[in-house]
């Protein structure tokens, strides 16, 4: 993958070098760029996942924080959508030490999903579409009001 996708999460870690290695091992990211600060910190990095990427940086300063410094609380999560291999992906993450919160399960909205926490407590959800449903079909399956426009 070259260039930049239109949206990129920048995720704060206390140990960004360890986080990059972990994201490769657990989820299959590939680190394509690292700008370190010469003191074990990372000013900028790019870890690629298909046509997407995340930036892993730290240690946190200013308004930034790792969940590891917030007793596990966090202000955002990241969702990875796979084309196949969801259950194997979960086993790979578990073997790398991910804390699995919800085991893989097929949801009424047609996706198979698992959720986990990474090495510093950032939440990730990983999904794979099993059955393409319309918003109307999702609403019927979940009992929720689901709209595609306001």
């Amino acid at each position, binding site marked *: 993958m070259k260039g930049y996708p239109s949206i990129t999460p920048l995720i704060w870690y206390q140990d960004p070098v360890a986080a990059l290695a972990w994201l490769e091992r657990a989820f299959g990211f590939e680190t*394509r*760029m690292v700008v370190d600060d010469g003191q074990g910190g990372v000013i900028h990095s790019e870890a690629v996942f298909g046509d997407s990427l995340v930036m892993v940086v730290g240690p946190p300063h200013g308004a930034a924080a790792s969940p590891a410094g917030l007793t596990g609380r966090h202000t955002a999560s990241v969702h990875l*959508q796979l084309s196949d291999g969801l259950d194997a992906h979960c086993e790979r993450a578990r073997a790398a030490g991910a804390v699995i919160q919800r085991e893989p399960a097929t949801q009424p909205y047609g996706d198979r999903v698992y959720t986990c926490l990474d090495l510093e407590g950032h939440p990730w959800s990983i999904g794979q579409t099993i059955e393409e449903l319309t918003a109307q079909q999702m609403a019927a399956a979940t009992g929720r009001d689901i709209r595609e426009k306001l």
Partner: protein
Amino acid sequence: MSITPTVFYRDPKAAMDWLQRAFGFEVSLLVTDDAGNVGHAEMVYDGSTIGVGGEWGGPQLGGAQMKSPASLGGAGTQFIWITAAEPIDEHHARAAAAGAQIAQAPETQFYGDRTYRVRDPEGHVWCFRQSVEQVSLEDMENRSGLKVKTSA
């Protein structure tokens, strides 16, 4: 394969309205419960999809809790980078007019992007970028004094 960040708010409905006004995000999916509370929402801005949710933390989440920066003294565990679809200075003016707290006004960076950074009303940090110049890795290093390691 794709990546979608989700951000959590005390008042997700107000946040969605603001994200529309300030940045141009449009609602693409809205899941509400019987009381009209937002269960899950997705918004799109020129190919960038975000999830928007309310604060919560259930037993199935272990010790983890989804919080707004407004509930954590302004702290945020993730920032979001987005490529501006219109001239970035105009996008910045729109965000400022909607009340975004400007953390960094538009500025052209050594790596060839013009960028700006703001905080939304609950404290999430949003970074917008637009490429204005192609810069080689060598020139980036010369301009910044940083060492850039790549897998290439």
